[in-house]
């Protein structure tokens, strides 16, 4: 048989097959929901215990650094730690140990959050020459556990200055000029990873607040140190002065919150600057979830208690891994409730309700694989730290918190 004729016939048959295939449509046949598997079920669990508590404010991840006083908050001082290597070039402080390097001066700067200067108080700077390799922890240090006395006496003072280098935008900086000898501490050869930390404070008590960019603020100018130096190429030839920039890698406002209000302690409250958190216990005892079921949602629902239109306030929640004290409002020097980070959830308030979906941990509890000690609520770092959220607690007749579980069974 002619090869081309044979080939054409095969192609025709294949096309018939494909056309037949694509001409067929598949539509579901509607049937009654009778005798077929898959079931949707729901269950509601009451919150039987709930309490707020206070810990020292955890301001380490906030976008801004605060000085002065505001709404009863006292911003005592700020702690700032620098990177060990310079920006871009990656120059370590040990670079300045070379006898051919002469450090001329240092400038430590903080970017003011406003582009204008209304009141220009004096700030002062300290450092920690005897602090060893570690002075503070951005996530743990607070006004109770940090000993300010380990800092040096002030080594520089500074004031706000406008920088008009950028013609499109005026920036205001707080600049401290430092003696070149300060770098000697940072390049100390006995301590491999020296603390490279500063303490910044207002020289005098101020009634207003002054706010600066933190290293956590995205796209902003965090605190930084500029080291100006010259380098000798030979005994008689020296290069022009140049500089390296060392950015802050940790910074923290140490603040003292105002006294707790009645609302703070009677409602379920969360607030960063107040150090307010809450714990709740959901009564899920004796609940057994079918091993093959899947939870669609296990929403722990709280009703917002303020007459306020609120948007984008986010609350973080985790199960706690030890017994909670639900008897009365308490203040602690350190958060006594450890979280299980495997079950972290972050939820925003929508239409005055906070609905935290805890389906992962609810599944474990339903499978009897997890001890239910309760859940912790705390504010997210993305919120305004000075905003305290109040939610109705279990004593509210209409707006009490509850957990509603929706699950699917095969």
């Amino acid at each position, binding site marked *: 048989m002619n090869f081309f004729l044979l080939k054409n016939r095969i192609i025709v048959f294949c096309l018939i097959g494909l056309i037949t295939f694509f001409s067929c449509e598949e539509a579901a*046949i*509607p*049937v009654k929901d009778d005798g077929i598997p898959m079931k949707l079920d729901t269950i509601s669990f009451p919150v039987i215990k709930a309490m707020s508590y206070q810990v020292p404010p955890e301001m380490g991840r906030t976008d801004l650094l605060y000085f002065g006083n505001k709404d009863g908050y006292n911003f005592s001082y700020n702690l700032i730690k620098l990177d060990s290597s310079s920006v871009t070039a990656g120059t370590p402080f040990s670079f300045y140990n070379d006898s051919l390097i002469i450090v001329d001066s240092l400038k430590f700067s903080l970017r003011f959050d406003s582009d204008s200067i209304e009141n220009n108080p004096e700030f002062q700077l300290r450092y920690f020459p005897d602090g060893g390799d570690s002075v503070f922890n951005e996530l743990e240090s607070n006004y109770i556990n940090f000993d300010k006395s380990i800092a040096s006496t002030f080594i520089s003072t500074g004031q706000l200055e406008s920088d008009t280098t950028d013609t499109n935008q005026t920036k205001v900086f707080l600049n401290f000029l430092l003696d070149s000898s300060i770098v000697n501490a940072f390049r100390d050869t006995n301590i491999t990873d020296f603390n490279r930390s500063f303490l910044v404070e207002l020289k005098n008590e101020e009634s207003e607040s002054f706010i600066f960019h933190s290293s956590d603020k995205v796209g902003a100018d965090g605190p930084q140190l500029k080291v100006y130096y010259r380098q000798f190429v030979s005994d008689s030839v020296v290069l022009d002065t140049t500089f390296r920039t060392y950015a802050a890698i940790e910074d923290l406002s140490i603040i003292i919150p105002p006294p707790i209000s009645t609302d703070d302690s009677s409602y379920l409250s969360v607030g960063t600057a107040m150090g307010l958190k809450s714990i709740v216990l959901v009564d899920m005892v004796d609940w057994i979830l079918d091993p093959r079921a899947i939870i669609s949602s296990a929403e722990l629902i709280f009703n917002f208690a303020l007459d306020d239109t609120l948007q984008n306030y986010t609350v973080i929640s985790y199960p706690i891994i030890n017994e909670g004290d639900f008897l009365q409002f308490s203040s602690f020097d350190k958060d006594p409730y450890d979280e299980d980070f495997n079950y972290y959830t972050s939820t925003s308030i929508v239409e005055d309700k906070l609905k935290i979906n805890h389906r*992962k941990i609810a599944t474990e509890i339903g499978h009897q694989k997890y001890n239910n000690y309760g859940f912790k609520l705390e504010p997210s770092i993305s919120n305004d730290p000075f905003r305290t959220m109040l939610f109705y607690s279990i004593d509210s007749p209409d707006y009490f918190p509850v957990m509603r579980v929706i699950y699917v069974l095969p």
Partner: protein
Amino acid sequence: MSYRNIFISLLLLNYIHAQSVFNAYGLGLSKSGHYTATSGAGSIGLVPTFHPGVSLDNPATWPGLKFTYISGSYNSRSVGLDNKNDITYGNGLDKIQFVIPIQDRYAIGVSLKLVNNHNSYFKTDSSTFDFQGKNLITNKEFRSGGGLLAGSFGVSFPMNEKMGLGFSVDRLFGSSRDEHSLVLNDIHYRMFNIRTYSGTVMNLNFAGNFYNDNDLIVLAFARISMTGKPVSGTLYQFDLFEDRNDNYTYDPDDYPATVNVDTIEVSDIYAPNSFSFGLNAGFRNDLNIFGEFQIWSDEASSANYESIYTDQIGSKTHFGGGIVKFGNIGARAWQDKLTFRLGAFKESYGLKYSGKTINENGITMGIGFKFAVTGNQLDFSYRTGSRSINGDYKELVKGFNIGLSLGDVWFLRRREKQ
């Protein structure tokens, strides 16, 4: 065109059969006939429908073939509901067969055929309810596909001048899958099951000429099918998951983070046994009238093998009859080469656990055209009917089949040269 080209082309045709809700009971509805000529007469394959004295589905009749045949049958089917406009379509191969008659007395054949139709796709209406202020809209969807295939080998041999036997072994194999899903506020919660099958069925066929004069020939046919090795299988049962991106498969975007698969070995899940009987009266003008009866049961001891419905088909009876007017290949006029078929049948399926009955009724018609000297035959058939369960749910079924049989001369006595 060579056999090889036909075969390749047939394989490229797709393999999707029209779904039915009833296919979600156990392994689904079993097929009564596999070849287009058989379907055209509404037969279960016992009585002659392909050629005078020959049914391609009955090995005992194969020695009556004049030529070696390779044949294929393809169906297209629609299933709709009685009172709604929902119609579903499907199509696919029913059977591929190769039969060699040997000296008008013996025959051997091999075939690949579909045993069960497991294809289903159905859903429930959406329902809405309030859960403490949260609006929940939900419905369910189910799909199943695949099923049992049989690779069959058959032989036939004479008992005496008027009777013959055919013996065939069906090697059952295949796989099926089903998907259960619940839709909650547009999010699908899916669960998959995949099953594999393996087993054997043996068939003993009988064909006999019990009366023969110039005006009338009475033929009787019977078949006993028995399970050689009950079908056993492996069930791969996937955990339920939330298909967040609605792509039908589990992936890292879905919930939960891991999904387990249980592998379960199950034996004796399908053990079909049946007895079939048929009578055919052939008249001098090539007109044949036939009647058939079949009782079928599934004797498997294992409980439901995780089909969508928690019930399965345990028995079946078939009554059918019709007329066949065979064409004459030697006729001059093309109209006289045509074979006409007309039939009607009633089938009842009994469900094992609920005791409910699925009733199916249908009428069929078909036409066949012989061409070329080797007895090639092109067959078409159409069927229409309905099936319902206890009068509660009713499907309207329409089907169109096309079959092509190409003949050649193998192992036949050749006329000696004069």
